């Protein structure tokens, strides 16, 4: 069987099969495990195509729609969110003569002819065209995928998982009577590649890549998860490895066993752009341009005003009472406005991982999280070590008691001989809890918060392992070296363009608080990969308080006064409470701290009142200013209520990203729709900070924006459907109903006010940068990936140029700009003239 020649031949073939798999795999998305939900563009694999082509191809491959529905457009038109003049010019540009109403009707007619029944958020599986044998294979596959990929849910896991997916399935296949006794699957070869080759033998090699692409797209949720898990190479992947190759081998073998013809369906090359998609594209562009027009106009006006004000009182830069740095997250915009209104506070926007790419493990935790955006790899491992022995002992007693109780309950429930007795003994207690959590969720929260306060929080008795002392955890060094600390601190101040420092500087991470919500991590900090941002904030505060770091910072031009104290905090985005980690603040700053705390409480009430008014509050629709306490109670109820499917709106509504000083936006109410990154062009002469912001935060915000966009336009294909029928599986994702494919994206309730009423406005991100346009051009010219995204219309970029009379320039194509300050149809390229310095 193994003469040298055949061995050689098969190695050659193997590499080509693997290459083909890799090529086909580029269209596979990434689905993060739900406990660390990362917002990503579900069409990330298509970003090298123009937007309209990408959604067309994705529609063919994944079956999702790419544009908002005609009803959504009509509602936006009726509410005046789409400027009719802009719409006219967008339609004319695309050659549509009919009036918008007629065009919407045409869209509706086409939608009706192509779609089945209307059930928001549900896939109509088993459409007429699907081969029943494929469905049979899918069911066997999803059964074994969920068994293999389980991360600690089942008490009895699939046998032989450590051998990898292909081999594990191979070892159980003989016992599974639902696996056919025919074809390749009846006697799986030793290696997955051999299985793939055996199945594909009858097909010409030119068809292999299309076959792979089509098969990867079939259970897109599971394949996305496998893709991510293999890339991430975390603890579960090392223990129980799975690769797309092994999955593909099992899938193809099963299909072979069920006698499925693998011939790829034709007609999906090039991407079909339906005739109605052109209309939708015009409406979408007009809607975006309407929003962007208002935003740019307001920012440009503020830019001008800022300039005048700056020249009026130059040199009298007062020290603010405190400076607070929030995440660029859209939810920060609301609370920052209210914090600023309570006193002489300066607020800033910075990526919520505070620039430190770390892998973090909390005290007593068994698992580490990557606390940095998914575009970065962690560079440091940071843990918590108890500093205060007594507190630690008391906390350990509590946690081990709690753990023991949890473990006892779990084992009692599991063993057949004990589960029944347990239910009888504990039943009455569950009855009480049932009534309490349903009828008085707010009170239950008070009780739990009270109990929680009795036990010290980790940050109260633990220090982080800030300093690097030569040890490593896995591949990563533990802690930060002095140089790294200085670098992270300096980068933060450079990116935000800081020159003065108040007596208190607060780095506020953020996290959501919600009960009974599989998607709770989607409300945490996106820049921390779906984790709470508090630990990162704490780390940067500790770094900045380090005397040696401050000395080095002085050399870098950041003269941090002696009396400046950095402290961390965490913004609870559900209740708008800002908890300060103030354990180490010296007594000299007690008064400052007291004042700040009182002001934060007031800001919280106002922010809560604003947000409660905009959520579907049934009894609190008319909150008035004096009733801030009631609003706070309402947000607390939402945070704790196990029946609440919309505890907060997360980043829903996001549409804009403003990169510039806070002065540009501080006089505006952006309604929680804009990401805000602090940046001062005048402190960034060579554009390094701008480059960092455009290549980092802007890319991440575009991911988030795309996630919200696609979850809204097609919640069944790109979102995860209604929470009402979700079923969490394997600690990694959710099913709809009984099982099948993993759902991806956000749940319906995160983006829709009601089944038929979007809350999120599905618009692609409008970025506004406050900088000389040529500097932006230079940055873009160095980054083909960015220009690619812009040229392909995945987001838009407008520059408000303070050196050119605050005029706005809109990025067109191929590094060309049009002057956005003029009428939209009078586009004209701006020559790349050298910047004119204005001072």
């Amino acid at each position, binding site marked *: 069987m193994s003469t040298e020649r055949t061995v050689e031949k098969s190695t050659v073939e193997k590499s080509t099969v693997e290459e083909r798999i890799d090529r086909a795999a580029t269209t596979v998305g990434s689905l993060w495990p739900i406990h660390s939900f990362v917002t990503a563009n579900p069409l990330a694999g298509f970003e090298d195509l123009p937007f309209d082509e990408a959604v067309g191809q994705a529609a063919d491959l994944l079956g999702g729609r790419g544009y908002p529905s005609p009803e959504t457009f009509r509602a936006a038109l009726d509410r005046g969110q789409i400027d009719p003049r802009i719409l006219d010019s967008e339609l004319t540009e695309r050659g549509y003569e009919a009036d918008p109403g007629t065009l919407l009707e045409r869209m509706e007619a086409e939608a009706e002819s192509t779609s089945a029944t209307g059930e928001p958020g549900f896939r109509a599986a088993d459409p007429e065209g699907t081969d029943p044998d494929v469905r049979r294979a899918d069911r066997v596959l999803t059964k074994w995928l969920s068994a293999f990929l389980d991360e600690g849910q089942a008490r009895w896991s699939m046998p032989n998982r450590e051998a990898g997916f292909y081999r594990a399935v191979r070892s159980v296949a003989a*016992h599974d009577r639902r696996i056919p006794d025919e074809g390749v699957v009846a006697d799986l070869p030793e290696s997955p590649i051999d299985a793939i080759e055996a199945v594909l033998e009858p097909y010409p090699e030119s068809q292999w890549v299309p076959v792979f692409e089509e098969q990867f797209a079939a259970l897109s949720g599971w394949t996305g998860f496998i893709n991510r898990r293999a890339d991430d190479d975390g603890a579960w992947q090392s223990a129980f490895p799975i690769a797309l190759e092994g999955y593909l081998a099992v899938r193809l073998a099963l299909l072979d066993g069920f006698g499925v013809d693998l011939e790829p369906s034709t007609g999906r090359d090039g991407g079909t752009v339906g005739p109605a998609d052109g209309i939708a594209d015009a409406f979408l562009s007009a809607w975006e341009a309407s929003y962007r027009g208002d935003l740019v106009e307001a920012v440009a006006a503020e830019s001008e005003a800022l300039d005048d004000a700056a020249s009026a009182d130059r040199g009298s830069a007062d020290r603010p009472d405190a400076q607070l740095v929030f995440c660029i997250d859209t939810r920060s915009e609301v609370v920052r406005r209210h914090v600023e209104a309570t006193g002489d506070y300066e607020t800033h926007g910075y990526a919520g991982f505070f620039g430190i790419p770390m892998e973090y493990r909390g005290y007593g935790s068994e698992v580490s999280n990557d606390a940095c955006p998914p575009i970065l790899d962690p560079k440091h491992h940071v843990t918590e070590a108890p500093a205060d022995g007594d507190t630690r002992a008391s906390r350990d007693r509590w946690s081990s008691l709690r753990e023991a109780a949890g473990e006892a309950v779990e084992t009692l429930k599991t063993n057949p001989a004990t589960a*029944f*007795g347990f239910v009888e003994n504990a039943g009455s207690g569950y009855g009480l809890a049932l009534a309490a959590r349903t009828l008085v969720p707010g009170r239950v929260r008070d009780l739990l918060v009270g109990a929680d306060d009795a036990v010290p929080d980790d940050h109260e008795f633990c220090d982080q392992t800030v300093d690097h002392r030569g040890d490593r955890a896995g591949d990563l060094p533990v802690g930060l070296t002095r140089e790294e600390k200085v670098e992270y601190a300096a980068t933060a101040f450079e990116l935000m363009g800081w020159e003065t420092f108040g007596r208190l500087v607060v780095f506020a991470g953020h996290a959501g608080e919600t009960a009974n919500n599989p998607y709770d991590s989607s409300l945490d900090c996106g820049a921390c990969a779906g984790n709470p941002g508090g630990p990162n904030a704490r780390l940067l505060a500790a770094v900045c308080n380090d005397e040696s770091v401050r000395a080095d910072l002085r050399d870098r031009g950041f003269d941090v006064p002696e009396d400046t104290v950095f402290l961390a905090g965490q913004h609870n985005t559900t209740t708008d409470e800002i908890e300060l980690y103030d354990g180490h603040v010296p007594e000299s700053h007690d008064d400052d701290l007291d004042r700040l705390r009182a002001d934060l409480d007031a800001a919280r009430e106002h922010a809560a009142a604003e947000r409660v008014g905009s959520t579907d509050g049934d009894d609190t629709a008319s909150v008035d200013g004096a009733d801030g306490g009631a609003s706070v109670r309402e947000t607390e109820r939402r945070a704790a209520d196990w029946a609440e499917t919309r505890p907060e709106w997360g980043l829903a509504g996001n549409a804009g990203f403003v990169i510039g000083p806070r002065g540009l936006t501080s006089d505006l109410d952006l309604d929680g*729709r804009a990401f805000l990154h602090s940046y001062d062009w005048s402190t960034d002469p060579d554009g390094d900070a701008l480059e960092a912001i455009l290549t980092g935060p802007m890319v991440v915000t575009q991911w988030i924006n795309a996630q919200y966009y696609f979850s809204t336009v097609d919640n069944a294909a790109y979102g995860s459907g209604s929470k009402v029928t979700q079923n969490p599986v394997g600690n990694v994702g959710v099913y709809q109903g009984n099982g099948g494919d993993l759902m991806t994206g956000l749940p319906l309730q995160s983006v829709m006010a009601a089944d038929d009423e979007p809350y999120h406005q599905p618009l692609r991100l409008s970025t506004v940068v406050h900088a000389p346009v040529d500097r932006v051009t230079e940055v873009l010219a160095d980054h083909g990936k960015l220009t690619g995204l812009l040229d392909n219309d995945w987001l838009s970029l407008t520059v408000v140029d303070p050196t050119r009379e605050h005029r706005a320039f809109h990025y067109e194509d191929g590094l060309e700009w049009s002057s956005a300050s003029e009428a939209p149809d009078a586009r004209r390229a701006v020559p790349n003239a050298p910047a004119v310095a204005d001072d």
Partner: protein
Amino acid sequence: MDRTMAGRTSKPTVGALPDTTAGSPFVPAVLTWLVWSLFAASVAVLVARVRLGTSWEVPGVIGVDGLTVLLWVVVAFFSGVVHSYSRRYMAGSRHETGFFLAVFGFTVVVMGLAAADHVGLFAVLWLAMGLVMAELIGTVDGWKQARAAASVARTYFLASSALLSVALTTLWWTTGETTISGIAAVADGLDGTAWLVAAVALVLAAMIQSALVPFHGWLLSSMTAPTPASALMHAGFVNAGGVLLTRFAPVLTVDATLMLGVVAVGATSALLGKLLKAVQTDVKGELGCSTVGQMGFMIMQAGLGFFGAAITHLVLHGFYKAYHFLSAGERIEHASPTHEASSEAGVAGLVTVLLTGLAGGALFAALTGKGTSVDGGLLLALFVVLTTLHAARSVVERASLPGPARYGAVPLVFLPAITVYALVYEAISGVLSGLPVVSAPTELGAVHALVAVVFVAVYVAMEAGLHERSPRLYVALLNASQPASSTVSTATEEHDEY
């Protein structure tokens, strides 16, 4: 552009989001109010019955006895919780009103069923209960899998109704009685084929209703139902099997062999349900398998002659399972693949464990009277010993706990818990005291011994992890717990739109 809404900073708003505030819908609000009124009324009736011993009846049609009143209170409570929960949970769903109407309708039907005395009325309400539950499973009617799951369930419920009709017709035919109370009064005289047909049909109808193996398919395919409907199903609907057996206890207890059969099917489901549960990876599937096991145990209690205990179990299990469904979303944790538990017990630990277990059993026997005489009750006491012992062991093994907690926690928590159970049991038995048969302990026999041995053996085997050595068993369990094929969403090629 300016919004001067309260709570807002008075700054010009750019790109304000439209106000999508939805009004509070009328039907859900009214029905929620109504169902809690029903609960209050039921409690009032219960109090009146306990205090004054009153009972009500429309002769030949309706009879309100202890079981009726108890079920009214329990059903109205579960339904009230589900209504209140769904006010928030279902908000914005286009099925909200239909869902509330179905849940409320279900509540009314079940309350009627609890009071029905005429066999015809009983059968009709039984059928209606099943059909409404099938509707709830298919609430999201634009979703093909939900419709398929509803249809699977409907088929099972029609079969159970058919079996019930066979049983009731046979009983009416042989006794000439048209009421349940009438049949109960003359049940002693039943024998022969007619009795056998009626009794077996009753048991089968109960098995389908309570989703006992091998009739668990509908339950494990029912996760297309909105979560609160599942809570109601697992806390209310499946219990009807136990209620049926209790109502017709005089018929079943005619022959001890039949009761042994009931013990056997109950025990089988109890064991298999738990084994099926062990391999589930999805939260709702796991809860479903757990229900299969718990219902098996409840039916086994009935088979042992402890109908009062069966009713107590289904009430307490209802609390437990409704809670777990309503909180299904919080069962996501970031786990680690390596989980090493340090276990050290020592001699003192073992002694504590044994003593705690025995104390639990003794307390249970003393307070409930089950296990004090040599009958099937011993089996129930054995379960309590095992449960307490197991809990004590799992806590004692944790070296990280401070001493007093290690040895004291379980007695401190479990003995009062057993007392609470005993109180509930006694109270329920008290309320049920007017029924023809509340407790008819069976003689100890080989089947009891077998059940005891099997349970202890499984306990030891699971603890030792012996079962995990058989991939064949794993695959069999996994396949046996797969939902019906038409009810699974796998295709991504097409999808519905709005």
